[in-house]
């Protein structure tokens, strides 16, 4: 950016000529550089350790760069746990997590935003007050509840329960609120059913908010390890995060280089996902933070 077009911030160019400001700015730059290093260093150790030989990971003092590149570690990682099946499980779980809960959430948000509804205030309270209840209160009873419903060890436990998310309903509703009511009234006069209004008008107009929710759902499905490790009891059905937790994080006798190769593999998809959808993610962040 050229000097003229740059908008001023806290400091102006005049400040910059003062020596103590220059020194302060230099210190700030050093601190930020140290910060960047702190942020990146753990990524470096993870990726480089995944390419080291078994002996090199444990040499003291530890080396940062590997002396020779052991790509075989990755093959061995795939052999050590069945990552392929875990990937397939996670993909299936994600597909359901998008399809069923987002339909439930979308319909509810459309109803609350654009349709005639009795007891609107009471219904809003019914949904929103769940946000105030700490998960500590219902974690244990939820597990017993799933047991009673016979949903333990089934993906339906996630697919059905996923719709019970007041935050998402609020997010989609606030997006629907931004669409002009006249649009739907005109469609209704032309004889469109409510279902058509929803699927052919509201949904296509709200792609950004559903994209944001799909990204959030992906992060949750990929990262969540505690709850799935309780609900899914058959090892063959486990999605990737609980499988890795059970077999790698809490296992003491696993070779470090293989461990890091698996960690690098499961870190890669979220990083790729982020690289592709960066704009939407930051947009979602602003929605959750600044408007709150």
């Amino acid at each position, binding site marked *: 950016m050229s000097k003229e077009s740059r908008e001023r911030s806290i400091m102006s160019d005049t400040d910059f000529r003062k020596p103590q400001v220059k020194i302060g700015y230099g210190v700030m730059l050093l601190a930020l550089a140290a910060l960047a290093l702190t942020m990146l260093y753990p990524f470096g150790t993870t990726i480089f350790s995944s390419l080291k030989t078994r002996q090199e990971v444990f040499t003291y003092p530890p080396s940062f760069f590997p002396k020779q590149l052991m790509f075989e570690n990755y093959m061995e990682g795939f052999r050590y746990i069945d990552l392929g099946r875990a990937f397939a499980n996670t993909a299936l779980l994600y597909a359901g997590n998008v399809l069923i809960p987002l339909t*439930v959430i979308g319909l509810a948000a459309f109803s609350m935003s654009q349709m005639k509804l009795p007891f609107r205030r009471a219904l809003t309270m019914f949904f929103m007050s769940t946000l105030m209840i700490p998960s500590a209160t219902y974690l244990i009873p939820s597990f017993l509840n799933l047991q009673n419903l016979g949903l333990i060890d089934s993906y339906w436990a996630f697919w059905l329960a996923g719709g019970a998310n007041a935050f998402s309903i609020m997010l989609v509703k606030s997006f629907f609120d931004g669409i002009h009511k006249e649009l739907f009234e005109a469609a209704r006069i032309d004889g469109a059913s409510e279902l058509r209004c929803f699927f052919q008008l509201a949904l296509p107009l709200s792609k950004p908010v559903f994209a944001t929710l799909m990204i959030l759902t992906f992060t949750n499905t990929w990262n969540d390890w505690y709850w799935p490790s309780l609900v899914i009891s058959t090892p063959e059905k486990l999605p990737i995060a609980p499988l890795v937790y059970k077999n790698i994080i809490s296992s003491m006798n696993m070779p470090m280089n293989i461990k890091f190769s698996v960690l690098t593999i499961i870190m890669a998809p979220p990083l790729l996902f982020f690289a592709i959808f960066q704009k939407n993610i930051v947009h979602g962040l602003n929605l959750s933070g600044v408007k709150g």
Partner: protein
Amino acid sequence: MSAIPTVQPTNLHAEKRIVKRFRDYAWGFIFLLPAIVVFCVFLWLPIAKGIYFSFMNVDFVKGNLFVGLAHYREIFQSGVVALAARNTLYYMLLGLLIGYWIPSVVAIALSELRWFQGSMRLIVYLPNIVPAVVLYGMWQYLYDPLGPLNQILSWFGIDKVMWLTDKGLAMISIVITESWQSFGTATLIYLAGIIGIPKDLYEAAEIDGAGVLQRIRHITIPGIRHLYVLLFILQIIGTSQGFMTHVALTGGGPNNATLTYMYLITNEAFVNLNFGKASAMGVIMFVVMTTVSIILYSIQGRSKRA
């Protein structure tokens, strides 16, 4: 049919109106129905069951037995529960000391950065994308007695530090790990707020002779005050229920030094299989958190008006 309207016009009118209103509302209600069912079955029912179980001895074989307030009495007399509550408060305090204020300082510095601001934003946000299990694997290695962190300390002549097995350090190590991951989100939220502050305020302050630090103190920080309050609330609600990093990195040890309240609830349920007591602890958590949230939200309301 044709004779009736002249006899009871008002009644039929009312009936018609009800039918019409019902028809008007029917679709709205049908659209809402799946969400209502799902909320009832997967949120409200467990919440109600939790309260019910807290007065029961839950036994899958012999059936549930009503025990009244026995669980509550046991909880309030238990030394372990008191320890876990203390640990949770200590953990929340450490989170505020280590993780809470840094993002705002970094955000102010980033807003002043004239080069590489975009890349720095990206770098700061990267840890957020790391899945929890990878985070644990990374930091288990970094905190290893022979790991990289101790090696860096040895350059400065500092002796080996037992990050995860020292009683005084374990909780601090956990908070550092979590702060490393979560701090990008907070930084970007603050940054968005700082960028939204009108630039002519700085111009005016500069003309009036205010130095850089004075401008930060009197313009920037008041300008993002509402974000300080918001993130404070989010952090308190989040850390009061923290336990997963503790499970993964220390297992509650050494000697229960990192056993949080929420961790104890899961232990009570899935290790001791005492679901009634675990539910009672959850109900207590609900009462405490509701009180705290009401206080916090009233503070937030006041800060918005100010």
